């Protein structure tokens, strides 16, 4: 576990400058947007007289120089104050925290689906490179990877919600059903099946291809030939020797795709009207709510950094060579 903590600490420390740059970038974005926070506030209360406007500006420090405004912004962030949303008339952090769990459920399930099914199919394909099975899975996954997630969502709605009526077309729960506990959880799960599939299938294809490629690479290594020379059972060679090594680049890919999937949730939540973090971004754009959008970007960056930290730890556990230079046996 020591190795894991050392990696974690190193990674966390190097994330700080990155986060700072994102914060500065977010601040510049806010500055670039037409109008400022006071304008936004005035919009929501229907306008005000110039004296009031000036007084508000002074009290919020919005009439000061750029560096001063930046430091005000930074100190607000340090207090976890992300500002006020124009469209909703509520603190941004509250909004985000309210919507985030839905998206995390959606993303988490999509990743779980993509990773397990993708790896399994990838192992099946990679067990015998060049076989009919392999070529079919390879072509199929390439075609699936080319599909836009929002279009896939519409197709799934058409087939499974409209025609077959197996699943609801939108939303995250049956409205005003009054369900509690397990029943409510199942209801939510039922609503999430199609969105999770829309978001996850594309990454399933990606993981399938990565596992397949990783296994092809592993088969070329001497240890695969050595395993055959030992006369081990084929299943053991495929799973324990080859796939176990091919897993490593897959785990790395998980981290790299975290940001992409968070972005993908925007469209999928839009198609399925899921009240999540991604949909909030769309609503922010529709309402020209720059502070909300900026807050969303900041939180996204934090989420991606956290996911990458977790992935790094997982990789460090899976690959015994990581951190090896910090302690070598004779």
């Amino acid at each position, binding site marked *: 576990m020591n190795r894991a903590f050392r990696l974690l600490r190193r990674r966390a420390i190097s994330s700080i400058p990155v986060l700072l740059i994102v914060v500065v970038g977010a601040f510049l974005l806010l500055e670039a947007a037409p109008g400022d926070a006071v304008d936004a506030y005035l919009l929501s209360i229907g306008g005000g007289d110039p004296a009031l406007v000036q007084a508000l500006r002074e009290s919020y420090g919005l009439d000061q120089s750029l560096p001063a405004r930046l430091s005000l912004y930074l100190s607000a962030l340090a207090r976890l104050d992300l500002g006020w949303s124009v469209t909703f008339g509520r603190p941004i952090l509250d909004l985000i925290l309210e919507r985030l769990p839905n998206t995390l459920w959606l993303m988490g399930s999509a990743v779980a689906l993509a990773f397990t099914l993708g790896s399994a199919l990838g192992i099946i394909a990679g067990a015998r490179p060049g076989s009919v099975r392999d070529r079919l899975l390879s072509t199929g996954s390439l075609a699936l990877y080319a599909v836009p997630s929002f279009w896939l969502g519409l197709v799934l709605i058409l087939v499974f919600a409209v025609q077959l009526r197996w699943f609801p077309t939108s939303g995250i729960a049956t409205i005003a059903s009054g369900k509690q506990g397990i029943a409510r959880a199942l209801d939510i799960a039922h609503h999430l099946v199609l969105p999770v599939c829309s978001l996850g299938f594309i990454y399933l294809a990606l993981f399938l291809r990565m596992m397949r490629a990783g296994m092809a690479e592993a088969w070329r290594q001497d240890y695969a030939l*050595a*395993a055959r*020379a*030992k*006369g081990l059972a084929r299943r053991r060679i495929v799973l324990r020797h080859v796939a176990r*090594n091919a897993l490593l680049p897959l785990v790395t890919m998980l981290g790299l795709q975290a940001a992409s999937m968070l972005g993908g949730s925007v469209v999928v939540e839009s198609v399925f009207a899921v009240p999540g973090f991604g949909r909030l971004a769309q609503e922010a754009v529709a309402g020209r709510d720059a502070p909300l959008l900026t807050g969303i970007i900041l939180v996204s960056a934090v989420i991606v950094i956290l996911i990458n930290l977790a992935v790094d730890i997982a990789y460090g556990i899976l*690959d*015994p*060579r990581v951190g090896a230079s910090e302690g070598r046996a004779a």
Partner: protein
Amino acid sequence: MSGRLVTLRGLGVAYGAGPAALSDIDLAISAGERLAVIGESGSGKSTLALALAGLLPDNARIAGDIAWEGGMKPVPGRDIGFVFQDAGASLNPVLRIGEQVAEVAQRHLGLDWHEAYAYARDLLAQVQVPAPDTVLRAYAHQLSGGQRQRVAIAAAIAARPRLLIADEPTSALDTIVQSEIVSLLDRLVREAGMTLVFISHDIALVSGFADRIAVLHQARLVEAGPAADVLRSPKATYTARLIASHIGLDTPRLVGARA
């Protein structure tokens, strides 16, 4: 010495559409003997090793015949042990050493995993790996080159195979370690009555322990016979050149002195 183990008759191997890696090899290997196969790069010696072990890739085209005594095709791991040149590459980097040795016993000797691990520990002691208990739980990247090769040898002999094929097992090692590994192999093979096929490019290295020497040159078998005979009075000119060009401490200076 107790009879024939395997006979190669007119064996030829080519990879895909490429030229022959082995051509018309006639060779008989007796049970219990130590045969050294000598050749330079591209002579086909590794191909010979892989062909014997049944490890040729799918695109290899085989001509001729490999006739095993008793008619039964040997099972890799159980009847044939294989030691690779680069032990670092032939050991799986993400699995522990103990698992990689024990799995052979678990597969071929009918042991359960607990017994197999205990057996693996004894094997590691047999191949003179220091601190076998620690090594059982170690990973390949934590061991030195010599230790890795010992581990590889342990895994190769775990199922007590009749035949041990070593493909240039010492070429990637330091000189002192080289001789240690060679004497280890010699001892193990003699104690267990195994047949040893030792592939190498270094005819001097094998001169100390080989019963017979076979020489390959450009995919053909140039000479084969008792070691003493081949070394003292080689019948083929190529063999003579190989012997003459070995460099030892007593070799006259190559550079600077007029020949």
